[in-house]
């Protein structure tokens, strides 16, 4: 589980816009860049080169 304090400040490393959790809590999504950052073992992987492009 990602703490609320962390979610409040987490941003897309590329555009710095706020990211939001997807429905099942497996990704943090940047709507502006259409990128999603994986969460593995509760660790957000906030690296641009690990982000997946959304269709």
């Amino acid at each position, binding site marked *: 589980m990602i703490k609320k*304090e962390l979610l409040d400040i*987490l941003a897309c490393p590329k555009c*710095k816009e706020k990211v939001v959790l997807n429905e099942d809590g497996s990704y943090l999504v940047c709507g502006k860049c259409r990128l999603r950052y994986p969460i593995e073992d509760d660790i*957000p992987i*906030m*690296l641009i080169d690990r982000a997946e492009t959304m269709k």
Partner: protein
Amino acid sequence: MLKQLAVLVYHIDRCFPRTRVEGRESEQAYSEWEYRVGKELLSRYAGYFGSLDGRRVLDIGCGLGGKTAVYAESGAYVVGVDIDRRNIIQSISFTGARGTPVSFTIGDAEVLPFADESFDLVVANDSLEHFAHPERALPELARVVRPGGNIFLFFTPWGSPLGSHLYDYIRTPWCHLIFPERLMEAVLEVVLQRQGISGPGREAARLMEDFRTGLNRITTARYHRILEGTPVLETVMEDLQPPKFAFLKPLCRVPLVGELFTGTVIGILRKSG
């Protein structure tokens, strides 16, 4: 020829005293060593940025989480960030076992995953020399600090006698400035072979790869240039410390020569506004 020279250098190298850096036996021991060091540093320098109780702290390049735990146990809400997943896993295990609540994310200091002005304090302890481009990282650290907040830096500059970060293997001070890289690698191979490490050649090549890619060769002068280019940051306190002999301290401030005698740069910065 190189091999013979490496053996000769090895024998001379053993005449130097071993650099005693604790906590290298295991990841857990390293976390515990970080914890002790972190506690000492915080008690020594906290006067510059005040109590951490209730503050939001970013520990950038958090390593194995020992120092991160110290900040959290001082009452701060701490986010530990490292680019290396293995470091984060050990950090979670160390702080989890202590029951210390900390948030961790994998991230890059040059493109941080945080909104502007998210933190009261950013700590970069033993990490500035490892960021690929410190010219990009320092302004990025400044971005995520609130106006009036602080950055606390602590790093080993390139000109330090221990600047190679290879002191577990090569004892010669300034070995990275004295020896060509091929010779360093050959000496490492001799050291590893004599330690009974299997595949010493491969391991020496790996250590040299870390040496080439894991250090940005930042000098004190370059750090000062970065600060000049980041006017939003003002220096509250700067201490240049020699690695072993405190009486050498005045030499640290001498241009050029000082680079060779500065073992640690400690900087406390304040974001204006």
